[in-house]
């Protein structure tokens, strides 16, 4: 049984069908990279998985249980699904440490001292243990995203969602974030990433999903898809991202 099963997901904004019959299984330990042009529905798909967006049809089943529509049941499920966003959205009024301990102490009722130990551990995983007492405004964008990853990891999620987390960063800051992602992937974390980092997708993902016009257009091992795209849409997309001047 897959950890996450999306079946026939539909999502409409007005008359615009942004997700059109999308089905995708995510096995435990699998790393799935979702690529595609902007407007292809990939971010919406990711946000549907933890209920930040509602769907207009289809089913989302996590660990054998359907996604609850909202309230305390949805909150309970979100404890197991971490997400990191494209926009830098650490809580600016809290220190790095408090950003990370908020979830464990308030949601999981972990004692503060224990949560602080967790915070130090997850910060080590993203190489930022020296920033424990810093405030977000004192960090670079890349460091903020690594703290956001640590914040999600502190909840010990079973699935991690990443929504273009390097897209808002200066190019020289992308590398450190990607390094953390690769380490996380190697550690066995189940991950679904919407990404524009083709190198990362090719090296690290088990499965590459190409979305186009709200549908999963192609899906398979990244090397195969990059080497031999079956559709002209993927072919032109790959050409565009690998050599933008072509």
């Amino acid at each position, binding site marked *: 049984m897959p950890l996450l099963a999306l079946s026939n997901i539909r999502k409409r904004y007005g008359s615009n069908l942004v997700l059109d019959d999308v089905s995708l299984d995510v096995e435990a330990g699998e790393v799935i990279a979702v690529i595609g042009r902007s407007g292809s529905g990939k971010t919406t798909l990711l946000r549907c998985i933890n209920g930040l967006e509602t769907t207009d049809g289809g089913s989302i089943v996590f660990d054998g249980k359907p996604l609850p529509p909202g309230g305390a049941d949805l909150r309970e499920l979100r404890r197991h699904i971490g997400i990191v966003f494209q*926009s830098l959205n650490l809580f600016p009024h809290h220190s790095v440490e408090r950003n990370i301990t*908020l979830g464990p102490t308030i*949601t999981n009722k972990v004692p503060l001292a224990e949560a602080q130990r967790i915070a130090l551990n997850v910060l080590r995983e993203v190489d930022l243990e020296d920033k424990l007492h810093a*405030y977000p405004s004192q960090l670079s964008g890349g460091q903020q995203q690594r703290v956001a990853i640590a914040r999600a990891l502190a909840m010990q999620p079973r699935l991690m969602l990443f929504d273009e987390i390097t897209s808002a960063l200066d190019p020289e800051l992308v590398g450190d974030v990607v390094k953390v992602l690769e380490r996380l992937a190697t550690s066995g974390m189940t991950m679904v990433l919407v990404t524009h980092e083709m190198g990362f997708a090719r090296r690290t993902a088990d499965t590459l999903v190409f979305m186009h016009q709200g549908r999963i257009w192609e899906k398979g091992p990244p090397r195969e898809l990059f080497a031999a795209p079956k559709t002209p849409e993927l072919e032109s997309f790959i050409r565009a991202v690998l050599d933008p001047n072509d």
Partner: protein
Amino acid sequence: MSRDFDWPEFLFLLGALRWTVVLSLIAFVGGGIGGLLLAIARTSSHAILRGIAAAYIGVMQGTPVLMQLFLAYYGLAVLTGIRIDPWPAVTLAFTMYAAAFLGEIWRGAIQAIPRQQWEAAAALPLSPAAQLRHVILPQAFRIAIPPTVGFLVQLIKGTSIASIIGFVELTRAGQLIVNVTFQPMIVYPLIAGLYFVLCWPISLVALRLERRIDATLGIKQHP
């Protein structure tokens, strides 16, 4: 027979100043509690709550505070069937007035927090109440300091209107003293000065509070 403005008259003014302070304080604290509830209601996802809060704020902001004062004064008198003391009427009127304005100021502060902060908190996953308490309100608080202090200062000065229904606060006390001394150009500048001494430090303290918060968060100071 008139008498000159002297220490007893000055002490009388100071005694009345106390009532200006007490009235402002009650209105600000009571209005603050009401305003917080209104602000949360105005930004909630419940349409009925939003509507009630918006209607209340609309009515209170759209009518003169003097009318609210009259309505509270005569309204309470009609309800209780006796001619009542101005004190409960002025505290009621100013508290309700402050609640509406603070509610609207704080609604703006809450809505100034980016949607992504709510989402990040919801994904953590904090409950809606915890999202407000730990993520949204502390940030809104910082944004709300300047307009809130601006309103507090307006409120303190605005309590002078309570003199019209005979509540003896600083302004009313000044009128009484002028009536016996016939020295308005001594009494009124002095009263203006007393209001200033009350209001100015509040603005200063607020500015220092803003700077301290910004410094803690590592935010660069604006010149």
